[in-house]
């Protein structure tokens, strides 16, 4: 086991721990800050796996833009305490835990059995220049469609977020 494998496992443990803490927090603010940790760890993992440009994008878009948007919405809306008893809370979590556990076990067994999964990952790096050339040569139509999707999302968000939200049909 070399240093890169150690970095991979440590980062994986940090990401899983931060995500597990995030999804169990009662306070939305704490959940979002834990999630920022998780996304920054993921960005480091992207860098380790040979995608430096995507690592930067992960920090800028996920840990930056999306999480700050969540923070602003949480600050804007009045948060309400939930009045769940322990029994109700367990009834909420137990089916989810059972389903998630079963799917995780099945996925792990399948991944470990499947051919092609056992190949070791070589240590290479795709430079941003190379990646950009590839993206705009092979997937230029997809990039255009993605920009159109973002435009439609902008229009939709503006329409839904008008000050007089009650007049929408």
């Amino acid at each position, binding site marked *: 086991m070399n240093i890169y494998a150690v970095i991979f496992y440590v980062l994986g443990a940090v990401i899983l721990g931060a995500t597990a803490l995030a999804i169990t927090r009662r306070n939305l603010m704490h959940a979002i800050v834990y999630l920022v940790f998780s996304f920054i760890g993921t960005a480091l993992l992207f860098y380790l796996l040979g995608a430096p440009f995507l690592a930067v994008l992960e920090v800028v878009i996920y840990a930056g833009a999306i999480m700050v948007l969540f923070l602003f919405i949480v600050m804007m809306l009045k948060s309400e305490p*939930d009045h769940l008893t322990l029994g109700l809370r367990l009834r909420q979590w137990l089916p989810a835990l059972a389903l*998630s556990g079963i799917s995780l076990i099945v996925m792990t067994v399948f991944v470990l059995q499947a051919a092609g999964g056992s190949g070791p990952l*070589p240590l290479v790096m795709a430079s941003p220049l190379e990646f950009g050339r590839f993206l705009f040569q092979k997937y230029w139509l997809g990039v255009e469609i993605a920009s159109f999707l973002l435009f439609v999302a902008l229009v939709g968000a503006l329409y839904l977020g008008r000050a007089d939200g009650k007049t929408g049909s």
Partner: protein
Amino acid sequence: MVTIVPYSHVLILAASLFVLGAGCAIARRNLIMILIGVEIMLNAAGLACIGAAMRWQQLDGQAFVIFIMAVAASEVGVGLSLIVYSQRRTGTLDADRYDLMKG
């Protein structure tokens, strides 16, 4: 040749992250936490794509992560404005209290 870890370990990490996000989306009742669960799932999918790009030395996997990020960004924009809209109309963020159509 220096290697990192087997591809299956990356896939298992991505699967664990995905399952955490799915559990969050199923079990939590707050609309914002449900959206956060969807975000975690999209992120896990991106991690699997990047691992695949490295396993087969093709850049297609990395290109797909760009599209995943675009979808995640637009989903969050529309989703959060929907949440603000429904909070204005009903005054609550609890998914269990949207029971207008109950008989």
